[in-house]
């Protein structure tokens, strides 16, 4: 039985988002990151140029989105590939898509520990300035900001509980 229905549980999910992101950055990007205060009301915006995302389906339907400004996206890709990256190219797109995939994979494991089974879709990326993203009416939205020396990025989780 999936118990992730209470609004207070958003804090627990935000904790899982943090854990999964720390794990991915430590093991795959070889980069130290610091997390900020999770935001639950949609007011926290990240000035991003590239967002990578992946859908979640199952007991919970949702989407995990990584929002990065240009410099941060290039630094993360450099860390992951072990080489300097100086433009937002296919490598950056694939690296951030893979990070979304791995963060969602970590979340999947944590949610399963709560009896909430989810499956992952495929990652995709959107590149552009002043892009608006929205998810279905009534979805819950968590944004966890993270910092690296070259700036701030955000990991967003939108979700609804599947109808029972």
């Amino acid at each position, binding site marked *: 039985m999936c118990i992730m229905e209470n609004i207070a549980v958003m804090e627990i999910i935000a904790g899982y988002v943090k854990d999964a992101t720390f794990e991915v950055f430590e093991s795959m990007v070889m980069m130290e990151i610091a997390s900020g205060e999770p935001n639950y009301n949609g007011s926290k915006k990240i000035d991003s140029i590239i967002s990578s995302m992946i859908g979640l389906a199952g007991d919970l339907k*949702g*989407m995990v989105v990584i929002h990065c400004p240009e410099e941060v996206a290039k630094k993360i890709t450099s860390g992951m590939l072990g080489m300097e990256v100086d433009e937002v190219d296919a490598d950056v797109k*694939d690296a951030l898509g893979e990070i979304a995939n791995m963060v969602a994979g970590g979340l999947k494991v944590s949610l399963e520990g709560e009896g909430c089974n989810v499956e992952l*879709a495929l990652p995709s990326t959107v590149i*552009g300035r002043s892009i608006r*993203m929205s*998810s279905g009416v009534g979805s819950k939205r968590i944004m966890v900001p993270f910092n690296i020396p070259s700036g701030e990025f955000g990991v967003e989780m939108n979700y609804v509980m599947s109808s029972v």
Partner: protein
Amino acid sequence: MSGLEEITDKLVASTVEIFSSMIMMDVAVGNDSEATINPYLKCITGMVGLAGKRKGIVAVHFPNEVAMAITGNFLGMDVSEINEDVQDAVGEVANMLAGDIKTILSDKGKDIELSLPSTISGDQYVFQAKSDTERITVPFIVSNGVFRVELELEK
């Protein structure tokens, strides 16, 4: 498992059906050369993830004018800006299409589940799935523009 051509045919039939029965709008398949435009300029994209036995993404890319016309038909009123109504309508079109694709890819749609419909909008953006996917993109013509339906599947 259906081949890509068969999936494309069913995807086209499904899009035509959704537009004629739910949105009351005639659509015709456009030329292939119109299928690959990226970046999208003044557009709104609706997308839904497919998870389970087949992993993928269903995306519908509408120029703003087309999205507003669709929303207007849905709601029976004039829509003159990209607002929440338009986001909901575009997300719902993606969701209906994804529901059909689920059935196309898997017998009675079992073993495949849909994620949450989401929208992306802006003056200029590039939308891409990861590099190594199977991709179907079909352009459709309506009275005030061309929109594209995209299906990305894990190989």
